Structure formats: structure tokens, C-alpha cells
């Protein structure tokens, strides 16, 4: 990092004197990043700006000539819902519940699997692959797998439960859709984290381990004092990615809705799985309240931002950043 900054400083100095750099040569950099940067402007910056403006209007998606700026009305309506226990608040609380349950389970389980697989065992690559398969499978395929597993009439889970407790007949998809959603998310999400954690554990310098062994550390002490601190940046990263991903959850509850998905994105999942993004799609595209929907999007953005900032702030108390002199 520091070397990087240094070269950049050098570049700057050189550039100001224009020594060794022609404009022509330098300008190729901008040509090369142009496709990405123009795309970033077109697909992120401009839509974000339009979105901010839209959230202050009563835009319906069709009233291009007659829409009006209505100030903070959309936002006060949304926050009104939060304080009066409205649907927006309900959806937001379901989403947070989902995040609070799924993220820790995902991290703990994937860390555990990674620890087991990095013990001196045969075929760790093979096992790692097996854990990753649920993550490769397209979402449309995995939803059908889960519907087939959890169906109340012919599902495997009920069949197995029946062997243990006869006459079990649980309507998973209609009565416990939230549980199914959580299980599915964990099942599909663990594999990627396992790969990253395994790389982290295998990256622990051998000298450190040897030194600890000579000092007589047992497995638990080794993990507690060497592996775990070195893994904290990875855990931190998993938390951030988990927050950003799970607060925006949308596709999975839509596809899991029992009434198939003939209605596409207008599908209404069972109430337990009525997530915030689903509420936004209902308000925007079904009820044609684009302005109000935009304000909800910005509220969600705001929550994600705050959580990310809080996490980053707390990270200095628990995330261990190794200073590697060889690191560029």
C-alpha cells in the first residue's frame, strides 16, 4: 500500500513537471478505463442522481409531464410507517431479522467447516468443492430443490421426520417459509465463505505455528491466539458482504413463494418473507408509486451505509491488520 502511494506521489510530481510524460502517453490510461468509467456514470451515478430527485416527487412512471416535487412527503410517509407499525416497518424488521439470523450462522458454520477441512485430512480439495456446489447452482434450480425437500405432501424432510415422530405433517412452505428461507440461504452461502476462510487459515505463516508449538500451545490456544486474529479481516469482510447482501434480499423470497412465480416480480411471498425490497417493488412497480419507492430505496441505502460505517468503526477494536513488509 505504502509503495503504491509512493509511486503515485512520484507520478504526480513527475506529471506536474511533465518530465518523461507526454500528454499523449498519459491519456491512454483514460482511454483504457473509459468503458468502465462511462458505464459507471451511466448505470450507477446518473441513476443514483435521478433516484434522489425522483424520491422528492409524486412520479408514477407515466406522468412525465405532470409530476410535481412534493418535498419530503415521501420520506415523512415512510418514517410515519416506521413509527406507526406500518407495512414498511414490518418489511424492514423482517429483513433485519433475516440478516441477524443468517449472517452469524453463515460465518460460524463456514469457519467451522474451514477449520475442519484444513486439519491434516485427505481430499480437502474434494470436500471444499462439494461444499461449494450449492453456491454454483443457479437460484432457479436451488429453489426447486428446496421446494421438493420441504413440500408437505411429498417432501423428504417430512418423510424423515415421520420416521422419528410418526404422523408429522409440517407445512414448511406456507407456515414456516422464513425458516426455509434461512436454511436455503445458509446452504447456498456457506461454500464461498469456506473457500475464503480456508485460504486464510492456510495463509497463516508456518513460522508462527512452529514457534507456538515449541512454546507448548495446544490446538485451542493455537487457534485462539494465532489463527483467529489473522482471520479477523476475513470475518470482517464476510460481515460487510453479508449485511449488504442480506438486507437487499429479494430473489429468494420471490421464488420461494408457493403460488409459483407466474406473476414474476409482482409475486407476493407469504407474510413472514415479506422483505423490504419486496415491499419496494410492490410500492414502485405494482402500485406505480415510483417516487415513494425511491424514497424507500434511499432509506435502505442509508441503513446499509450506517451499518457499514459502524462495522468499520468498531473494526479497529477487533480486526487485526497484519503489516507485511513484503506486501506491495
Amino acid at each position: 500500500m505504502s509503495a503504491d502511494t509512493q509511486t503515485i506521489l512520484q507520478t504526480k510530481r513527475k506529471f506536474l513537471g511533465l518530465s518523461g510524460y507526454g500528454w499523449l502517453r498519459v491519456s491512454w490510461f483514460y482511454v483504457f478505463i473509459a468503458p468502465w468509467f462511462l458505464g459507471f456514470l451511466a448505470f450507477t451515478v446518473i441513476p443514483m442522481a435521478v433516484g434522489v430527485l425522483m424520491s422528492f416527487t409524486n412520479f408514477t412512471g407515466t406522468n412525465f409531464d405532470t409530476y410535481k416535487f412534493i418535498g419530503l412527503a415521501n420520506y415523512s410517509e415512510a418514517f410515519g410507517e416506521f413509527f406507526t407499525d406500518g407495512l414498511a416497518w414490518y418489511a424492514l424488521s423482517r429483513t433485519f431479522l433475516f440478516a441477524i439470523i443468517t449472517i452469524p450462522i453463515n460465518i460460524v458454520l463456514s469457519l467451522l467447516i474451514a477449520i475442519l477441512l484444513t486439519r491434516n485430512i485427505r481430499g480437502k480439495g474434494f470436500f471444499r468443492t462439494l461444499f461449494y456446489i450449492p453456491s454454483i447452482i443457479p437460484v432457479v434450480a436451488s429453489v426447486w430443490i428446496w421446494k421438493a425437500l420441504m413440500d408437505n405432501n411429498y417432501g423428504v424432510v417430512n418423510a424423515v421426520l415421520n420416521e422419528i415422530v410418526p404422523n408429522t405433517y409440517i407445512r414448511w412452505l406456507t407456515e414456516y417459509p422464513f425458516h426455509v428461507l434461512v436454511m436455503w440461504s445458509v446452504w447456498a452461502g456457506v461454500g464461498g465463505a469456506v473457500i475464503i476462510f480456508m485460504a486464510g487459515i492456510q495463509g497463516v505463516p508456518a513460522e508462527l505455528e512452529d514457534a507456538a508449538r515449541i512454546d507448548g500451545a495446544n490446538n485451542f490456544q493455537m487457534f485462539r491466539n494465532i489463527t483467529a486474529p489473522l482471520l479477523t479481516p476475513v470475518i470482517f469482510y464476510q460481515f460487510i458482504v453479508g449485511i449488504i447482501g442480506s438486507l437487499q434480499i429479494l430473489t429468494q423470497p420471490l421464488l420461494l413463494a408457493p403460488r409459483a412465480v407466474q406473476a414474476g416480480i409482482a409475486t407476493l411471498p407469504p407474510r413472514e418473507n415479506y422483505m423490504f425490497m419486496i415491499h419496494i417493488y410492490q410500492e414502485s412497480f405494482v402500485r406505480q408509486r415510483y417516487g415513494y419507492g425511491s424514497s424507500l430505496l434511499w432509506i435502505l441505502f442509508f441503513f446499509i451505509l450506517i451499518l457499514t460505517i459502524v462495522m468499520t468503526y468498531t473494526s479497529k477494536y477487533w480486526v487485526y491488520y497484519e503489516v507485511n513488509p513484503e506486501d506491495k
Partner: protein
Amino acid sequence: MNKKPLNPGRVFERFSLYAVIIALTVLFILPIIWMLISSVKAETDFMRWPILWFAPVPKWSNYVQVLTNPKYGFIKGMLNSTMLALIFSIPNVISSAIAGYAFARMKAPGRNGFFIILMAMMMIPASVTVIPQFVLYSRLGLINNYLLWFLWGLAGSPFQILLFRQFFASFPKELEDAASIDGAGPLRTFFQIFLPNAQPVMAVTFLFAFSWVWGDWFHQAFYLSGEKATLAMKLATAFTDPKGNPIITLTLAGLVIYALPLITVYFLMQKQLVQGIVTTGLKG
């Protein structure tokens, strides 16, 4: 690692370690096995209660029916999915490669600033722009149009750019020197020297891009319809019999065909893909 003698306690430890790993693996893989064995059942056997674990005779004709029944339009959906994935992936890989190269090998004022923008971009929740994007695309006539995927691809993606940057940064400096002595400009240096040597990363990024589109349902269901429908869209609703009743086993057979290419390629390219996941995950 030095070998320790096997005493009974250690044997037990090894045994329980394997037992736990295998139990967990089975838990994760069983749902997929269930999809495979159910895809060759007759629908009546699949629905049977108490449960029938294995079909008495595998009904391979499920696969034939999925592929050939014109009502399901499976092949058409497959072609559409392939087309859409290629329309996205090819420009995505090239744009990402060229931007990654610029960030790794070229010096220019503002490079650091642009790189910070690139990193920050990964933190922006994608959904914040969905409504304005939809409105803009409808105004521009990009709804139900594969061109949208081409434009998305052209913009590259931060993760892919990072992968290329990482890779190109490891090339020796002499490569550029040799090129500039030969009088090659930046474009020739990139396309004739760096890109041909970047095949492993190109393969990985292409696969990431391709499988993103192939496995994506949401954007396709949102922006496409009718003749343009992809495999993901067709498989989201169950295949039905002439009376309109869903046939789950047939649908599962279709899903096996749909998911198999991704799983196969993953097995073939395991090493490179793991490297890619680790690079973007750890250093991203």
C-alpha cells in the same frame, strides 16, 4: 508435518474428524442428490407416501421429453440463455481486462482517485438504482432487448477488473520495455503482449461473467418476456401436463440439464476458480 505414532486416542480423533466432515458434506450434497434421483422418477412415484427413495426403473424419458417437447421450448430457452450470456460476457471480459491493465501498468494523474472510485463502487448496494434504471431503460427502448446486457457487459465489473489488475501487476517490467523498443504503442502492447498471456484470468473471468447471466433469474424476469424468454425464466414455473398440472419430476430433469454445465466447468477449472474467489474475496 512430522508424523505422530497412532495411539488409540489419536485414531479416535481422526475417526471423529472424518465422521463430522462426511456428515456435514452429506447434509450439503443430499438436496442435490435428491434432485438427481427425483429427475428420473415417474411423477406418481415422486408423489408417493410413504416416500419412495429410488425409482424402481429409472425413467430416462423425462430428459428426452424435456428436450423434445415443443411446448416447453427448452432448446429455444437454452439458446437464448447462451446468447444472452455471451452478449454479456465477451465485452465484460475485454472491458475488465483493459481497465485492469490500465490500473496495473499505466501511470497517469488521478489513477489513485479512479481506483478509489472502483473500490467504492463495490460497496454501493446495487438495488439503490433499480427504479431509475428501469425508467431510463424504458425511455431508451432497452426493455425486452438483449442490447441491455451488452451495455452492462461493456461497463466491465469491479471484481473482474481487480482480478486482471492483480494478474497484470505480476508481469515483469521488461515486457513493456521490449515492446516500447519495438515501437509498440499502448494498444499493441496490451492486445499483442499482455492479453495473449492472460488466458488463465480470461478463462476465470469469462466463467464468472457467463455463470452470472446463466444463473440469474431476476434481471431476466424483470426485463425480458415472450420470444426472448431464457431458460431461467422458463424453469421458474413448473413444466405442466396438457391439463396444466405441474410435473415436478420433469421440471427437475430440466433443472439438472440447466445446472450441469456450471457444475462440470467448476470441477474442471477448480484450481483457477478458487484462486479467483480468494483474490477478490480477500484482497477485494
